[in-house]
């Protein structure tokens, strides 16, 4: 017997908010503009054992990719129980990550060092997730709790927490330097109550 899932009907709205959050963040932080508007694509979630698959090869062909994720929760109790309402996953190709962080005025780091690359992708994900959280609240939604970032290279065998009632997500593709795709942000989020 199949049960209908309570899919978030505002997913596209939330993806638009996230898109605007990222554009504003890059403009304010680095006075950086994307070379074309972000491309938003609604896609199915690939789930494995209750977690959402995370795979850099799906975003960037044949390029090593750094990936970081931050989860959202409706409250601290849900956070303690790992009952996520959403997740933001940031993907950046290895060969562009240092340049992107420099654009955002972060200090130079050793871009041959895996730990430093993971950390910088996590740092980027953290500020994007924080800005999105603030912008969601400004748009009238309930304040969300935010997890620390977690990092991967190329893929995560065990995936990431997500809201189990959701079966679709958004991919936000960002273009820099002559319209080359340089960052993808995945957003999966369930129903967030209005305040």
């Amino acid at each position, binding site marked *: 017997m199949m049960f209908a899932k309570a899919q978030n009907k505002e997913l596209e709205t939330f993806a638009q908010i996230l898109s605007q959050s990222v554009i504003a963040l890059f403009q304010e*932080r680095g006075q950086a503009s994307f070379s074309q508007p972000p491309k938003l694509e609604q896609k199915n979630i690939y789930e494995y054992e209750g977690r959402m698959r995370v795979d850099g090869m799906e975003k960037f062909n044949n390029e090593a990719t750094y990936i970081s994720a931050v989860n959202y929760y409706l409250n601290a109790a849900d956070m303690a129980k790992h009952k996520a309402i959403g997740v933001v996953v940031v993907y950046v190709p290895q060969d562009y990550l240092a340049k992107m962080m420099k654009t955002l*005025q972060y200090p130079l780091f050793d871009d041959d060092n895996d730990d430093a690359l993971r950390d910088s992708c996590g740092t980027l994900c*953290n*500020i994007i*997730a*924080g800005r999105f959280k603030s912008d969601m609240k400004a748009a009238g939604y309930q*304040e969300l709790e*935010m997890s620390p970032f977690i990092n991967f290279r190329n893929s995560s065998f065990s995936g990431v927490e997500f809201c189990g009632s959701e079966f679709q997500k958004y991919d936000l593709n960002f273009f820099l330097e002559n319209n080359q795709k340089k960052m993808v942000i995945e957003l999966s989020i369930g129903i967030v109550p209005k305040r």
Partner: protein
Amino acid sequence: MGELSKKKILVVDDSDLERELLIEVLKGSGIANDFLQAKSGEEAIQILGTRYKEIGMILLDWQMPQMSGMEFMEAVVKVPQVAKMPIVMVTASGTDENKKKAKTVNPELAGYIVKPYTPEALVQVLKNYLK
């Protein structure tokens, strides 16, 4: 507060890059204090436990694995030797409700700065304590 200028600043953040940025910004803005670094709440507790007399201020991230910045602060305010130590939260989580929560846990909270911050905003908060 003048004696704080001779003490060390403890920077607590799970991001190496954020810690580096913070120290770089402060040094570049003429803050001459030495810095100690911790990449987790637990590590910060250990440092504070042994070196609290050297430390004049804590710059604290919120979202960290295991012990969060808020949990760290809850622990600190219960210890009389360090309860009054100025703590500035430096976090990506920048809503008014978060600020209220932080103030509830630590009514003496010295500041609340949202990442990404401007150097001016950061220095302004610290200079009130370090001048």
